[in-house]
């Protein structure tokens, strides 16, 4: 028997269980995301499109310390930062998305002659990362378990840049990431996609609470609770742990933490957690280079230039249209019917319990396409225990070390990296990671394991259609 014929016979003889389920990877073709809601594109109400376009342009601007660098007009960068602009990270598959194929942090950390060392976990083909230290450390660099840290440790400083002035390495240094990695004292987050967030913002708490009740009466026990605003007790819903109540807060926090730009919500230059520790010295005066807040309402300009960047970033997120689900053309996509089958299996095994397919928004005062619309976000916006395997040991609000907001799955078909820390590019690995001691999702993953390989593959095709 010829070798190739023997191989064919052997393959046919393989039991069903030996079939390999594969993730085909990010869906090709058009981005199926990005750009304004249809009512915004139609300029309803009058002038809203001008505001959106202005916001989109600001979202893509590159930052520099004083705004004096050619091509980097957005002032206020640093003294610590993770990237030079919003769209550096929120880029794929369109402006407002998540991590692109090439990580811009490698270039951003060295831009304008900056003296930064690129941390070992940042690579040009890897995912964009934000880092947090789990614990503060002692003089020897050992984690001190009685002193949880949990705050963002920006990767880079402006020291060495041509526009850094007095802020030199004598006054500001990068955290010791090599030690943090060696001591496993570090947790990562990747950028969340921003498409459709105006719809998310406009879902009433009562609708979310109704779904939570169904967790406790349905055939799948998945627990769940809400993270809540410490100010008014209402349900917060943005960020990996649903730690932010509103898009404006989300934007203001990111602007100061990721780019170092003080704003009307976060008004002081942010020292590193270490500089603030034990009533420490704070940020060196040599590195406080601009009057604060650096981003503010512009009172001397007309119309859409008046609001601050923070307000316009929030507006941009609010008016971005949601991702488009795309199973392809039934006539030309051989996997169309399998993806359709997968949408049923998604419900059968209980994914839909937490990755709730849709909510209806409330009447909106902003634009018709935010008003009483169906948002197919595939998330209950609750925080769930995800177990020891996914725990990052960072507490934010009421979300403990292993609790995360159910990640919305809209746009998943285009995503390159999965889970809060971007640990995998493979959907199957991401699914299996939902199972570990302490996870709300354990029964659902057992249901996934009950499926035939064909049914599992159908589900993967469905997920890549989102």
């Amino acid at each position, binding site marked *: 028997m010829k070798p190739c014929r023997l191989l064919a016979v052997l393959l046919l003889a393989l039991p069903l269980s030996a079939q390999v389920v594969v993730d085909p990877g990010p869906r090709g073709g058009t981005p199926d995301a990005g750009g304004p809601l249809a009512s915004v594109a139609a300029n309803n109400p009058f002038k809203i499109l001008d505001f959106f376009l202005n916001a989109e342009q600001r979202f893509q601007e590159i930052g520099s310390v004083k705004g004096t660098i050619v091509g980097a007009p957005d002032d206020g960068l640093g003294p610590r930062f993770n990237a030079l602009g919003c769209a550096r990270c929120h880029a794929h598959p369109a402006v407002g998305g998540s991590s692109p194929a090439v990580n811009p942090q490698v270039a951003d950390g060295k831009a304008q002659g900056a003296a930064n060392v690129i941390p070992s976990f940042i690579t040009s083909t890897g995912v964009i990362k934000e880092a947090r230290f789990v614990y503060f450390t002692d003089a020897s660099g050992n984690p001190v378990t009685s002193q949880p840290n949990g705050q963002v440790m920006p990767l880079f400083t402006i020291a060495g840049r041509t526009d850094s002035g007095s802020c030199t390495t004598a006054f500001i240094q990068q955290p010791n990431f090599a030690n943090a990695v060696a001591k*496993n004292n570090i947790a990562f987050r990747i950028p969340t996609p921003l498409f459709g967030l105006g719809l998310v913002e406009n879902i009433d708490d009562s609708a979310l609470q109704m779904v*939570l*009740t169904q967790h*406790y009466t349905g055939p799948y*026990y998945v627990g769940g*609770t809400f993270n809540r605003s410490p100010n008014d007790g209402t349900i917060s819903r943005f960020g990996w742990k649903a730690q932010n109540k509103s898009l404006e807060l989300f934007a203001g926090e990111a602007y100061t933490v990721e780019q170092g730009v003080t704003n009307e919500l976060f008004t002081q230059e942010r020292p590193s957690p270490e500089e603030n520790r034990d009533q420490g010295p704070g940020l060196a005066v040599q590195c406080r280079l601009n009057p604060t807040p650096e981003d503010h309402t512009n009172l001397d300009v007309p119309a859409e230039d008046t609001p601050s960047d923070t307000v316009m970033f929030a507006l941009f997120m609010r008016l971005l249209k949601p991702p488009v689900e795309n199973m392809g053309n039934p006539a030309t996509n051989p996997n169309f019917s399998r993806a359709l089958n997968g949408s049923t299996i998604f419900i059968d095994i209980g994914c839909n319990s937490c990755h709730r397919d849709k909510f209806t928004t409330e009447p909106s005062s902003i634009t018709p396409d935010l008003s009483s619309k169906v948002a197919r976000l595939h998330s209950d916006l609750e925080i*769930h225990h995800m177990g020891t395997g996914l725990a990052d040991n960072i*507490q934010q609000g009421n979300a403990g070390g292993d609790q995360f907001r159910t990640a919305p799955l809209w746009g998943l078909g285009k995503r390159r990296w999965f889970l809060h820390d971007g640990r995998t590019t493979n959907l199957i690995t991401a699914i299996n990671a939902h199972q570990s001691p302490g996870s*709300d999702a354990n*029964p659902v993953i057992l249901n996934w394991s009950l499926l035939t390989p064909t049914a599992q593959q159908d589900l993967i095709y469905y997920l890549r259609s989102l």
Partner: protein
Amino acid sequence: MPLLFMMVLWLSAQGAVPKDVILVPGAVPSASDTTTPVPEAGQLGGGRYRNAYFGLTYPIPAGWTEQPAGPPPSDAGGYVLTQFATMEEQRLKAHVLVTAQDLFFAPFEAAGAKELSAMTRGQVPARYEFDKGPDQVTIAGRTFYRLAYKAPVSGLRWRIFTTDVRCHTLTFTFTGTDVAVLDAAEKALGGLALDGKAPVCVNDYARDHAVTKTTPAFANRYNTIPVRVIIDTEGKVKHAHLLSAFPEQSQAILTALRDWRFEPYVVDGKAVEVETGLVFGLPRLVVR
């Protein structure tokens, strides 16, 4: 908690943060003492799962193995007690999830297992096929409400058994693809024991019959803190179990409850222990 303590000791010795451990747990369960049984403290041994709080002994079907532990009790009174699964030829064939729902803190209005079973049935998609078979069965001398159905597309089958214990619902959810395996698991459920020795349980007794109480002082985090208490024959708190609370909240509540006094619960002219519930922080969420 001892495991966490040991991990912290290990961490101190090694100088590195251990992997795959929850060191910053958020809201967790706690209790006023370590001797009174609590629902989340079931144990496995001798081929049986035992839960002293519910008086439950569940003989694990032959060939079934324990699965990763569930999450801590929820702030809505939900418990994952344990989970087992069985495999054949390296393929999962079926699993059983054992859960409990504290009816004092549930986010729905239901008097017990019968209503909860009906609610669950109401959530089953219309395209699913219900099996023939009884809606009620008697196991361990108790009435269990039974739901059995199949999802035609995925081929998954469910058999769900729910009963009432100690003002909780106790549910066994079997899921699998093989009828024979599910039949055998259902048959093995016949070996279940529920001894039923427990204080009488009365919803809202503590709320309505407090004589003396002081408000515990803790910062409001806008979380719901459900607390099961056993009140002794003198009206004192004999035992308190906080299902879900941050450590500073637990400490403040347990300290305050030491001073609380209630009217003793009386049955046939005689004071008896009573088990009831209290909620601190954000009120219980109930969607009607």
